[in-house]
């Protein structure tokens, strides 16, 4: 087996390192460290020209990798252990690679690992890194095939190949018929990395979510964006309360809204980050739209969990009255309180009902009571006792939005008013760069809804009672201290915010055009190109046609005669071509004067003017330079006009 050259191993190591580096963000630290160690070791061996480690040692190391994976994941199946195993395998493979075959296998493995990285992240930095990794892998393949060469020419050759492949890649990317995955069942942990709201709520959950500055979704309004007080994005609606946690009640679903949309309409485009849930976080209250599901708790739902960035054209009708004819069972559910919890709050509720007289006045009374109680809005409330609502309202008086919402709902129910907790997002920021409203995880919020006879479900935000700026100015404005806020959500660093806005805008285009390129977008694109029928047949035909054009271009490029020659040569060979077509080809070895002389003898009628052209050519081609420009012009002119008979 021929051993590999130093430059070949160098390229291979560079490609593998570029491939493995981004995986460090999610691999168990032990595996990452082991991979790094193995790469450095192989680099050291390459530098020193020493021998590769003994096979026995590699077996031990491989056992180590398997053990580390098992220790971390307790299994081999699934995405994460699989990737971890592959990463270890690639690093180990490099350590035993000393033949062309092994090196090429390693390159294939690293292509696969680059794809693996996309399961975790697909942002621009990762894409750039993957491009760099592909470049290094192509450089590796070039080095494996060719002679030893310096870095610069090899890199130039690899870059040339990449550039030449770009048109084909674009055509395939845009026109390859996209199918909405998955084709088969995914491992259970396929989407474990996504964060956001969950199906139930315990005290502290929302606060935890809002510690992240990650973007939850973006909304681009066609007209002016709605005022902050309207920006309520509905997530899970929680009706069932067991004293500790809140859960959604039973809900009916249909493909039409459970209400008649009315009032002002706000059309917008929602670009939702994947959160692996069904709910779509539409702004209250979404109008009819195709292909979506409506819950009787006024949520907008998708049929599949949102596993990819999703782009929806929606219309919000904030002033729509909802729940006028609510199902009595739902109302019963919305009044239920678990026995034995929060006695003081229940007492407060009964007290409020007695004071109000009319049910319609109870919520306002409660809000006033909350405000008078001087409840503090904080991300880090003091620990609460078993009766956490009681504890919040009467003892610690510190809480985050979920505490406010939960306390308000319990109070309402005790007062006999049907009420429930709604989680979702509130607010968001307009990015001045592209005008989209960006809603982050830190905008996660919980509020309450009460049901009043003849008015239906009404939104009540008890947080607003003690921290009105939460609604108008976002979390950062409402909280007294900014210490625990994510850096990018802080408002005291304007340049940082400007930078963040810019990055967000670029990211948004990236998401829209690259990551969010789905079957629908593809169809829109094809339709915009003027192809009415956007079925897969016409798509395939279009793709095949475009590929044929690109490949035809490549073929022309490959066939282009890279022959030396200048205008004089071209003119002369044109003359010779025309004579050959007329049946008097020039022998390859025949000089111009001999050719003209032969033709003058053999076929004097065919080309009487050839003698002059040939003499001019001989003079220009072989004579002293620079030649007479008049002669040059005469030659070009007469050779252009030359037509043998």
């Amino acid at each position, binding site marked *: 087996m021929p051993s590999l050259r130093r430059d070949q191993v160098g390229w291979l190591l560079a490609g593998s390192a570029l491939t493995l580096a981004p995986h460090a963000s999610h691999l168990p630290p032990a595996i990452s460290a082991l991979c790094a160690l193995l790469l450095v070791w192989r680099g050291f061996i390459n530098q020193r020209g020493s021998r590769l480690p003994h096979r026995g040692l590699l077996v031990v190391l491989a056992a180590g990798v398997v053990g580390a994976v098992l220790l971390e994941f307790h299994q081999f199946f699934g995405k994460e252990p699989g990737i971890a195993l592959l990463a270890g395998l690639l690093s180990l493979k490099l350590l035993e690679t000393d033949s062309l075959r092994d090196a090429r296998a390693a390159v294939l493995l690293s292509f696969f690992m680059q794809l693996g990285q996309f399961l975790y992240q697909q942002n621009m930095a990762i894409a750039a890194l993957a491009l760099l990794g592909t470049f290094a892998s192509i450089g590796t393949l070039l080095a494996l095939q060719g002679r030893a060469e310096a870095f610069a020419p090899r890199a130039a050759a690899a870059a040339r190949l990449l550039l030449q492949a770009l048109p084909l890649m674009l055509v395939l990317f845009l026109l390859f018929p996209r199918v909405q995955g998955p084709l088969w069942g995914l491992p259970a942990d396929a989407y474990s990395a996504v964060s956001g709201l969950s199906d139930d709520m315990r005290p502290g959950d929302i606060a935890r979510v809002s510690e992240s500055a990650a973007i939850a979704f973006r909304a681009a309004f066609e007209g002016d964006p709605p005022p902050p007080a309207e920006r309520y994005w509905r997530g899970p609606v929680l009706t069932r309360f067991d004293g500790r946690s809140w859960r959604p009640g039973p809900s009916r679903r249909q493909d039409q809204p459970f209400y008649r949309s009315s009032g002002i309409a706000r059309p917008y485009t929602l670009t939702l980050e994947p959160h692996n849930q069904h709910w779509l976080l539409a702004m209250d209250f979404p109008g009819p739209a195709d292909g979506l599901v409506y819950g009787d708790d006024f949520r907008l739902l998708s049929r599949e969990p949102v596993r990819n960035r999703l782009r929806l054209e929606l219309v919000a009708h904030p002033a729509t009255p909802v729940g006028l004819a609510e199902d009595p069972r739902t109302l019963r559910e919305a009044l239920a309180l678990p026995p034995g919890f929060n006695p003081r709050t229940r007492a407060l509720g009964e007290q409020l009902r007695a004071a109000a007289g009319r049910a319609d006045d109870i919520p306002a009374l409660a809000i006033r009571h909350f405000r008078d109680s001087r409840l503090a809005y904080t991300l880090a409330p003091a620990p609460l006792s078993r009766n956490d609502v009681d504890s919040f309202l009467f003892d610690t008086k510190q809480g985050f939005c979920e505490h406010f919402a939960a306390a308000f709902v319990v109070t309402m129910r005790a007062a006999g008013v049907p009420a429930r907790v709604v989680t979702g997002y509130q607010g968001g920021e307009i990015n001045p760069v592209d005008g989209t409203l960006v809603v982050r995880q830190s905008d996660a919020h919980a509020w309450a809804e009460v049901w009043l006879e003849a008015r239906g479900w009404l939104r009540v935000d008890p947080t607003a009672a003690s921290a009105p700026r939460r609604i108008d100015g976002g979390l950062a404005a409402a909280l007294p201290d900014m210490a625990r806020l994510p850096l990018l959500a802080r408002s005291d660093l304007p340049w940082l915010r400007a930078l963040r806005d810019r990055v967000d805008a670029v990211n948004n285009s990236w998401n829209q055009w690259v990551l969010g390129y789905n079957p629908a977008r593809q169809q829109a694109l094809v339709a915009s190109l003027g192809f009415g029928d956007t079925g897969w047949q016409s798509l395939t035909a279009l793709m095949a046609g475009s590929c044929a054009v690109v490949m035809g271009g490549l073929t022309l490029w490959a066939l282009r005669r890279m022959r030396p020659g200048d205008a004089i040569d071209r003119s002369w060979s044109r003359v010779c071509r025309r004579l050959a077509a007329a049946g008097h080809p020039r022998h*390859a*070895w025949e000089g111009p004067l001999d050719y003209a002389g032969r033709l003058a003898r053999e076929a004097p009628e065919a080309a009487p003017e050839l003698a002059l052209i040939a003499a001019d050519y001989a003079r220009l081609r072989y004579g*002293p330079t620079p030649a007479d420009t008049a002669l040059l012009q005469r030659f070009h002119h007469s050779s252009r006009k030359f037509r043998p008979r």
Partner: protein
Amino acid sequence: MPSRIARRLTDAASRIILGKDHAVRLALACILARGHLLIEDIPGVGKTTLAHVLARLLGLQFQRIQFTSDMLPADIIGVSVFDQRDASFRFHPGPAFAQLLLADEINRATPKAQSALLEAMEERQISAEGQTWRLPEPFFVIATQNPADQIGTFPLPESQLDRFLMRISLGYPDRAAERALLAGEDRRELVAHLPTELQPGELDSLFEAARHIHVGPRLLDYVQALLEHSRAGAGFSLGLSPRAGLGLLAAARAWALLGGRDHVLPEDVQAVLPAVAGHRLRATGDTPLGPDALARRLVEAVPLP
């Protein structure tokens, strides 16, 4: 005008050597390229006359040696004789000390005598008894030789052949030329009364002009391709030496001068190729090829660049 002088020379020579325009022109080109000429043919076709004519026309001091099998090197280059009066050797220059030396039937001499002449041709000087004598300037050798298959001959080895820039043959005259030959005056008489065509210094200006004929890069490419093919291509078992390449170029320059051009064309190279390369190439295979067939084989295998 060097080209006009050259034209005058060829015309004058052709008036005496009838029907041999091409050979005469090649011989003249060989002289203008300052190369030695080997004429190979059967006796009596006018080899000697050609040499005479050239010497007369160019106004060169002429010497003739008839080579024989008992000839010794000293018969050519001269000999040192011990002079008893002053007890020292005195060098008596041989016939080689001439501007144009006709070495008749060179292959009749033994290799030793041949090599004495050929060394003189190459070095343009003669060394004997530890002393060196320069040969006159210019110095040309026109050697004639009988075809190799004649008996009692010592064919020149390849290394010696390489010293001749050209090898040409005259062949029988055609019918018209033969008639004119038969009907006309005695050639020898004509030669004896042939006036010198050149003014003093004109020969030098011709040499100078031939040396300065333009050779472009494209032509050098072509010559190189010819040389490479002769060395590596099929059909040749002995290729052209670098010296042959230089000679080819010099001969092509002289040929272009005779053609009245100031630059060399591939045609010029092809025209002189049989004479320049014919005695240097050897074909593979069982049948020996004549110089024309050899040169054609080479020319047709190499496309113009």
